[in-house]
């Protein structure tokens, strides 16, 4: 091989390695789900709507469409965003509505069937107040929980009447869980589901339970 050919080969190989490194950094380290912002134009209180789905439309969720997942409705566009990251202003009332498009998953620890940290210590299933739900015997069935341990918030989310497999879903067959809480001081607060709902993962843990963008994420409180 001639000297110019060797030089070109070396240069191409070097550029390929650099391109690979850049791809890894951008795709895996800097990438991730988007953040839905509820701070812009917030006056007095924030209204946040989410939905939980048994699985997702593979055209929308390309990474793991078979995983159970939350979606958040963008207040700016009204579109459903596949993410579990959101911003809210500090010391503000946050009104949450979760549309349940997933079926029941029995709760592992009944402690997470107890509503804590909400305004009034109560959540509402279709408008009916609940404070403690038996996740094993009913009368209500639970699919997931929405919990922010840093502020001792825990709300069991009512199971839907059916299961939607192509989230984000817009059909009417869903449960509606509502509650309100006061956002704390500025900071990043993780939230998660406490029902190990990672179907086919060992003991229900792993997969969506361990991945931001599916069943856990961050609430960033902005001062």
């Amino acid at each position, binding site marked *: 091989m001639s000297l110019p050919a060797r030089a070109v080969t070396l240069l191409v190989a070097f550029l390929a390695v650099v391109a690979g490194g850049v791809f890894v950094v951008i795709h895996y380290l800097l990438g991730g789900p988007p953040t839905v912002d509820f701070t812009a134009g917030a006056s007095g209180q924030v209204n946040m709507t989410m939905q939980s789905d048994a699985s997702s439309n593979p055209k929308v969720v390309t990474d793991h469409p078979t995983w159970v997942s939350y979606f958040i409705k963008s207040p700016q566009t009204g579109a459903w965003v596949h993410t579990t990251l959101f911003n809210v202003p500090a010391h503000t009332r946050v009104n949450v509505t979760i549309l349940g498009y997933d*079926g*029941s*998953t*029995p*709760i*592992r*620890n*009944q*402690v997470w*069937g*107890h509503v*804590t940290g909400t305004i009034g210590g109560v959540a509402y299933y279709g408008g009916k107040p609940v*404070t*403690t739900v*038996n*996740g*094993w*015997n009913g009368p209500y*069935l639970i699919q997931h929980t929405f919990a922010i*341990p*840093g502020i*001792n918030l825990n709300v069991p989310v009512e199971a839907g009447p059916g299961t939607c497999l192509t989230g984000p879903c817009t059909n009417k067959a869903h449960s509606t869980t509502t509650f309100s809480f006061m956002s704390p001081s500025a900071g990043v607060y*993780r939230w*998660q589901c*406490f*029902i*190990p*709902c*990672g*179907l*086919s*993962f*060992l*003991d*229900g*843990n*792993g*997969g969506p*339970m*361990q*991945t*931001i963008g599916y069943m*856990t994420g961050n609430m960033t409180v902005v001062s």
Partner: protein
Amino acid sequence: MAAAGEAAAAPAAGQIEPRHGLRVFLIWLPLALVADLVIWFVWGPHLPPGGMSSSALSQQVDITVMAVMAAPVMLVVFVYSGYALIVWRHREGDDEDGPPIHNNTRISGAWIAGTTVIVLSLFVYGTVELILPAGAGAGEGNTPIWRPSGGTPLQVQVIGQQWRWTYRYPQFGGFETTDLVLPVGQNVQFNVTSLDVIHSFSAYQLGVKADANPGVNNVAYTHTLHTGAVMVRCFELCGLWHADMTTSGQVVSVGAFRAWTAATRVQLAALTSNLPPYALTYDANSIKQLGKAFTSVGLTGAGGGYYGPQYPVQP
């Protein structure tokens, strides 16, 4: 000239080599005494994890004893090194080799005897310190061999789950809460278990640390001595939010503890009625109500149970 040079290099007639060993010892002794007194009386009382409980206090004393033992050894090295650098430093015009080193039985014997005494005494001390404070706050497994004396201890079940600790009080109706509250002046028995993966319960200021394994009851004891705040952490890498698996607990007065248990028992009555009967471990497959719930919705696996063949386990 040659004869004159040899005469200059040779030791002067009648010159006696100083007793270097005695010198080093006399320099070392006051330094070691001062260092040990400072460690024991000044530094020791401020060493972690403090004195909030018997196990924490014993750990603090143990670290102090280790420091008291280590300081003189460290000073021997420093003093000897400094002495050698100063006294036996290279001098102008002295190019002569040092004398050949032969075995010194007294020094070798003293070294072996000294290190043996130090190591064996620390071994005996460490063993005693593990036994006397009832396991020194460490998990002793399901059948602890070192138990505290003085009546039935307060039972607190510590339940780890991704990613939060909950605490169950079987002597107060079996309520389960996310708050760790303990009375002062009381023997406490922690029964530590997990609902999912391996965690490790560490109540830092209490000097208590016990692994939380699913299907296993790991017992640790302590005796609370002072009121104050306790930081609880997970010390076993357990997943995405391991670093965030922290809670704060409290050691309060006996009166405050009684008031708290009475109020919490009433407040959580509805939740307590939903809990499975108190047990040392909670296997999802042995909790009847949970099994029925799984069957009713046609699920296995998710929720903590084992999977059927229709759900191959993914890594």
